[in-house]
């Protein structure tokens, strides 16, 4: 039996009854935060990015039903996201023509049903085996759908894709969704509903057995559960929620193309879910937020943002397999012992030094990009707010020095931070 890719959280049996308000508190808090966000962050680009994040959150959470909860690595999950989106777009177009009463708020439901249907069909043969075979089948299905999109151009709209218009749909309670902010509240609503549903799913018998089948599929069979059926039900549920994400995408962007179903999209959700941490429920949420943020912010400043994300991903796989959420949860003992304050100093120092090293490396890479791309005959480039001339030697030496200094500094500051962490996490009662 092979070890899991991450550290597992302590599975705590929940107490019903008296703890009910405490159980619902995080959800209420999340709802309040989501409602307040567009008023707090008022930059013009904020709401579109937050919409993007919301869609990514639903997609990543649905993906983690497979990877983190079920131990199933899929390279083709975007198929259900995309197909859900396409079906939702077509339904919305039909509604716009008056052929169907489908107000915009219900469109994600259609997307979800579409995703579910496709998962039922494809899952019937995808889930017979787990592990590498499952991953390969998912890859095959993904590539199959991507290639089929050019054939069935009525459904997929060929190379231009399918467009839709949320302004033409019938109204529900008179609510229109023409502006970004209105779409934001719709997406926020569905994010809460979908996340709550997925969380609830993880607390059902099938959700618990999905964990068991992930950890020891053989033993699960000997307590009466067919591992194949457990995987199939999980797979269908994951497809349902991916489809909801696709429906939200259709509403927000009003266009779906074959790329939304392809390996790039499937790879992106794998990246964001893993970076966030597949061992906990909030991990994928964290990963989706960070990934979307980096993707939208970084791409304004650098053409090689995907390289940075790839390196971040590799670093996570190699050094922090529990992801960001796992990293945060490692500090739980220190939090409980109220010894987090002692970490601030060493962590800040280590972070500062790491930042210096990162600045050096990023500077070098950006200059390589500048020189190698040959897209411009300019002599200078703005890096970190200063103008550098990549075709001269000085900036190279400068950034290399930064990188080396930072690396050396990390060799000193890193162990100190680790020691501080060990000290803070030490169980009480022993000094």
């Amino acid at each position, binding site marked *: 039996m092979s070890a*899991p890719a991450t550290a597992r959280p302590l599975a705590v049996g929940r107490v019903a009854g008296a703890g009910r308000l405490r159980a619902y508190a995080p959800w209420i808090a999340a709802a309040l935060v989501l409602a307040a966000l567009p008023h707090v962050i008022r930059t013009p680009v904020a709401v579109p990015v937050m919409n993007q994040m919301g869609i990514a959150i639903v997609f990543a959470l649905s993906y983690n039903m497979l990877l983190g909860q079920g*131990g199933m*690595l899929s390279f083709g999950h975007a198929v259900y996201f995309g197909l859900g989106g396409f079906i939702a777009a077509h339904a919305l177009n039909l509604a716009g023509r008056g052929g169907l009463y489908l107000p915009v708020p219900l469109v994600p439901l259609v997307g979800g049903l579409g995703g579910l249907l496709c998962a039922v069909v494809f899952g019937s*043969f995808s889930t017979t085996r787990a592990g590498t075979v499952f991953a*390969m089948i998912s890859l095959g299905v993904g590539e199959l759908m991507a290639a089929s999109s050019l054939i069935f151009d*009525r459904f997929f709209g060929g190379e231009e894709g399918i467009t839709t218009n949320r302004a033409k749909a019938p109204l529900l309670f008179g609510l229109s969704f023409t502006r970004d902010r209105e779409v934001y509240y719709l997406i926020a609503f569905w994010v809460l509903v979908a996340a709550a549903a997925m969380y609830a799913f993880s607390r059902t018998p099938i959700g618990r057995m999905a964990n068991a089948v992930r950890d020891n599929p053989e033993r699960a069979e000997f307590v009466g559960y067919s591992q194949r059926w457990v995987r199939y039900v999980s797979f269908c549920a994951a497809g349902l929620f991916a489809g909801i994400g696709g429906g939200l995408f259709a509403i927000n962007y009003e266009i779906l193309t074959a790329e939304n179903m392809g390996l790039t999209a499937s790879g992106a959700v794998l990246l964001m879910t893993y970076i966030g941490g597949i061992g906990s429920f909030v991990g994928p949420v964290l990963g989706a937020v960070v990934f979307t943020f980096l993707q939208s912010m970084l791409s304004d400043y650098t053409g090689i943002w995907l390289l940075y994300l790839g390196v971040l991903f*590799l670093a996570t*796989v190699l050094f922090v*397999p529990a992801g960001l959420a796992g990293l945060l949860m490692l500090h739980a003992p220190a939090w409980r012992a109220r010894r987090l304050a002692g970490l601030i100093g060493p962590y800040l120092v280590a972070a500062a030094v790491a930042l210096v090293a990162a600045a050096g490396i990023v500077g070098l890479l950006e200059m390589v990009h500048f020189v190698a791309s040959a897209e411009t005959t300019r002599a200078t480039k703005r890096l970190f707010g200063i103008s550098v001339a990549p075709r001269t030697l000085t900036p190279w030496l400068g950034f290399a020095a930064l990188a080396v200094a930072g690396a050396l500094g990390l060799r000193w500051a890193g162990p100190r931070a680790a020691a501080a962490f060990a000290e803070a996490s030490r169980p009480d009662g022993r000094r």
Partner: protein
Amino acid sequence: MLQIAFFSVLNGLVYGMLLFMLSSGLTLIFGMMGVLNFAHAGFYMLGAYFAYTMGLYLGFWPALVLAPLLVGLAGALVERCGLRRVHRFGHVAELIFTFGVALVIEEAVALLWGRPAKTYEVPTLLDFPLFRVFGSSFPAYKAFMLLVAVAIFLFIFAILTRTRAGLIIQASLTHPGMVAMLGHNVPRVFMVVFGIGSALAGLAGVIAGPVLGTFPGMAQVLGSIVFVVVVIGGLGSLTGAFVASLLIGIVQTFAVALDVSVGNVLMAAGVPSAASAALHDVWKVTIAQVAPIMPFLLLIVVLMVRPTGLFGTRES
């Protein structure tokens, strides 16, 4: 018709042998280490780009030898510094890791060489038609590709079956634990095999670059097909990789050449034409359009019916 058939077979053979060069390394790595190397096609791409750059300064022929060596070294490095660490987390983690490596390789190549395709050209020595038949010519370079691929196949076969090192590798394929107990440095064997597999992929890139194009997306284009070949042939089986490569190579080449629609086929078989709009998309689909999907359809069918592949003995 005969012309199409003849050249399809020849081109299919060339394409199939190229697929074999790629899939042989992949299936060996899987057979030995249990990891399906997502980055394998990335090493193929590195081979093409290394050869292109070396070719600019040293010429094609030195690059033909040096580029694969460099790629092999890169592969060994990836194994030593990365894969070995992730190994203890299980196969899923290894797969995720190699996926990340593939992504970084692709982005690094785009960074260093740019996104537009490179004009990596066939060496002038081989840039002539080998023979003319049925009114079309067959380029000598493709014959060269075939030659190299066959030579590689014989080389691998000879090493695996006739040398001591090959014996150890074969044993490690099924019983790595026992081989370690017998005193062999199994991690080093793994690293060497990974390096050689990557070097083979790189060699495939060196040769295929001029014909299939040298651009950062070239890994993705072939990557999936190579997986399909390896899985259909049987994970860990060299014979399976060989048979599946030729099968897919020839079938795909034939399919692309045939400009016949599904409707034509069905009508020829005596099925009455259904002109309804619903079937319209399927009806007018040509075999050529279906060609890119066929390997994946085959993959799914094989995985459902016989998860160990045609010749394989292990699923994962």
